[in-house]
């Protein structure tokens, strides 16, 4: 896979899921920087360069992903943000059609194949 020259900031507190998503994104040609907590991610949001961000919704706090999305959008409004969550289906929280109150570009359910995430990121970044 050719290098895309795009860096993704990935925040995820499940060690294995972090590894797996990173693996898939790298295979798709992305560079990936990772954080395994909201705290770590906040630091990276403020200090590092990235072209898109993927935040897990529930890390230390139930709303970690939202908070990170907000921070990221405040500093870099043009950088697309994806929030991933494992809870959508069970809670009846349907994010897809009602995202007006949180400024993220896309909500993805975890377990949706990580390949799909790579594809969505390419779409958000205008690569495909």
């Amino acid at each position: 896979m050719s290098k895309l020259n795009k860096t993704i900031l990935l925040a995820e507190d499940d060690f294995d899921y972090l590894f797996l998503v990173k693996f898939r994104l790298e295979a798709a040609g992305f560079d990936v920087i990772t954080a395994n907590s909201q705290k770590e991610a906040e630091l990276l949001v403020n200090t590092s360069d990235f072209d898109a961000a993927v935040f897990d919704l529930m890390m230390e706090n139930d709303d970690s992903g939202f908070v990170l999305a907000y921070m990221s959008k405040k500093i870099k409004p043009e950088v697309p943000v994806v929030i991933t969550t494992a809870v959508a289906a069970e809670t009846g929280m349907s994010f897809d059609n009602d995202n007006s109150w949180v400024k993220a570009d896309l909500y993805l359910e975890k377990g949706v194949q990580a390949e799909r995430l790579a594809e969505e990121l390419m779409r958000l970044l205008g690569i495909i």
Partner: protein
Amino acid sequence: MDKLRVLVVDDEFGIRSGIKRILDKFEVDYPFMDDPIGFEVSEADTGEKAIEMLEAEKFDIVLLDNKLPGIQGVEVLEFINSKKIDSKVVMITSYASLELAVRVTKEGAIDFVPKPFTPQELRSSLENITKQIFLRHMTTKLQKEGKQIRFQFLSMLSHELKAPVNAVEGYLNIIKEHNCGDNIAEYMPMIDRSLERLNAMRSIIMDMLDLTKIESRQAKNNVQPVDFCQVAKICMSTLQPMAIQKDVKIYLNCSGPVVMDFDPDDLEIILNNIFSNAVKYNKDGGRVDCNFTDNESNVEILVADTGIGISEEDQQKLFKEFVRIKTDETRKIPGSGLGLSIVKRILENYDSEISMESELNKGTTIKIKINK
């Protein structure tokens, strides 16, 4: 939701207009809100007037002075409670009646601002309340068509069960697609991680069974005189294999039987959870000391370990369901995050207390006191 309606109840004109001046210019901005929230202030100079207004209109927040010329602030608060009016109440009281303020806070006022207050004190109280109101508003919005947050446990559970499924599935897909070449050794760490995740999943299921047991039978339905030391010995022998593997020594200090009325199944679940934590979160070569003390009015259980310890911040959270501390040290230790919440749940059926003392890298002591 752009403006919250605030009712200021105070007999002093100066205070009312002061508050109005502060709040007219104040906005609360919370991450993930599209627009900041401002305030619209109405005023009442007596409790009677306030009640009249509360009956006629909806206010999100009531700032309530306790000392009023007619009926007192507390009575307005009681009115709000009895009519189940959906307003958050902040009491404004002078320092002299701080005690009262604490009391009314317990009775349903959600905050109090001492008088005299600085604009900042007022703002930060309002900021907190606004966040609460906003989050509740959002949650209601998200509960589509009556889907209740009664689900919380179930949704946490499915979250916890889904996480290992996602992880194992992800690894299996990589293996299936030979994404790391044809050398099987490349895949060994993934296989090991998968097995570890499955193990953790099993312990969630086992703990779920304990929980179902607790829920499905009547509380304490099998209470009888039990020798705590006897039960402790049984629990310990089940734990020996794990203890040996970790090179952790368990010492049980029982000078004679310690007998009191208890449900032996309950006791076994409690001790198993506490003991296994003391071993699991220990260091290699560490020790666990268990003491049972038969006091006149209670039995005291002390379980002290020399393990990784828990930071003060984390200690607060541990008795909640599915809480696990995520550090490099705990990552490889399988668990469900249910154990301590189960223990707490059982102990609630008895006249008892559980507390914990812990220091990072030094160890943890769990203390349980059960009144006879």
